[in-house]
């Protein structure tokens, strides 16, 4: 009896701790949304905890004061290209890394070491390659560095290694080619890995600022993070419209995450235990 009571107390304490942590993590989101639906300045003192005279017209202002629909379209196109490229190329690379071949460990070591190099260090070669391919100021150019990411390759590798070897051997005996084994056997069994790829790539691509800043020339090719910076430079204040813009930029990636979070968490934990 005493043990059960102790267990309940511990559980309650754990939940209380989690609630306190969740509160501190959610306060900035609340503050952004609160500012977006009012005309308060975020630096106003004393701050009001509850929104005063809330309205949604700041969102309308954002929609019309800058070419928001165009930025949104650009971001959707670039993120879609990046997501499709990631799922296709990472699945191929992940499958190759589950096979035995000469130099496999070297390739794995190379991939792991490349993860240590920040993108800022390779941005000039990336820019020159994109320019040589005549992809500057294009959607494919914007998505190019995100078409395959090493972390996501390892997510696919871990997921494919979790599939019983006998299943792949049986598929091969039935006459399936390597491509069809990936497509018909491995991919349907790796939905959490696909969801992880989709979420991570979408969020990375959606929030990418530096690369689009470098390679876009035409203002109409800019993506939402660049539009946000442009909006701030025009408006030069910290009132509701700026935060409404931030909410409109954040909303799609939060929606994608919420829709795929179950598979995402399963994909990450599968990678953690079997990778």
């Amino acid at each position, binding site marked *: 009896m005493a043990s059960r009571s102790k267990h309940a107390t511990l559980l309650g304490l754990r939940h209380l701790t989690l609630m306190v942590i969740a509160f501190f993590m959610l306060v900035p989101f609340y503050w952004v949304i609160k500012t977006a639906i009012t005309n308060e300045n975020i630096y106003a003192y004393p701050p009001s905890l509850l929104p005063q005279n809330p309205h949604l017209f700041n969102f309308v*202002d954002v929609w*019309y004061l800058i070419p928001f629909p165009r930025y949104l379209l650009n971001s959707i196109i670039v993120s879609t290209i990046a997501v499709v490229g990631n799922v296709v190329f990472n699945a191929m690379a992940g499958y190759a890394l589950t096979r035995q071949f000469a130099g496999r460990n070297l390739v794995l070591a190379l991939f792991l070491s490349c993860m240590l190099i920040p993108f800022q260090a390779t941005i000039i070669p990336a820019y020159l390659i994109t320019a040589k391919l005549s992809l500057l100021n294009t959607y494919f150019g914007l998505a190019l560095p995100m078409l395959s990411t090493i972390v996501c390759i390892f997510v696919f590798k871990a997921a494919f290694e979790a599939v019983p070897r006998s299943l792949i051997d049986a598929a091969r005996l039935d006459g399936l080619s390597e491509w069809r084994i990936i497509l018909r056997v491995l991919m349907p069994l790796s939905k959490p890995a696909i969801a992880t790829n989709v979420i991570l790539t979408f969020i990375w691509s959606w929030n990418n600022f530096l690369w689009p800043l470098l390679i876009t020339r035409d203002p109409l090719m800019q993506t939402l993070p660049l539009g946000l910076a442009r909006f701030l430079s025009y408006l030069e204040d910290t009132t509701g419209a700026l935060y409404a813009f931030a909410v409109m930029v954040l909303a799609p990636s939060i929606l994608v995450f919420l*829709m795929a979070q179950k598979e995402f968490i399963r994909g990450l934990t599968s990678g953690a235990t079997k990778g």
Partner: protein
Amino acid sequence: MTRWWASRWFIVPTLMLLVTLGWLVYVGRHDNGLIEGRIVDAAGQPVAGATVRIFDRGFVTYQERGRTRSDADGRFRITDNTSHSVQLEAETPALGRSKRMEVRLWFAAQDVRLTDPLRLPAKP
């Protein structure tokens, strides 16, 4: 058998698409740029022949875009608004100038009938 239509990957995008289409249809039927309202004096009586100016919102300023006059009942009608956020101001030589009224719309050129009149000050 998998019920694909019960999946959130179908329901959420479909709902978003339907809401967007519904909104676009509504916008398409109500974006003629009409703004209707009334002008009254300090005693609440309609003012005929007042000049009404409309100002469009830019990034940080409002620019005059057009003007019209109120009729015998003090009513005015602007037919070519293209903005989502405007200010209105009424003026007569005899009664002076009203305070600017801010009109924020849900979409550009939304048709709107103002419930509050533009109120001219008492004769100075």
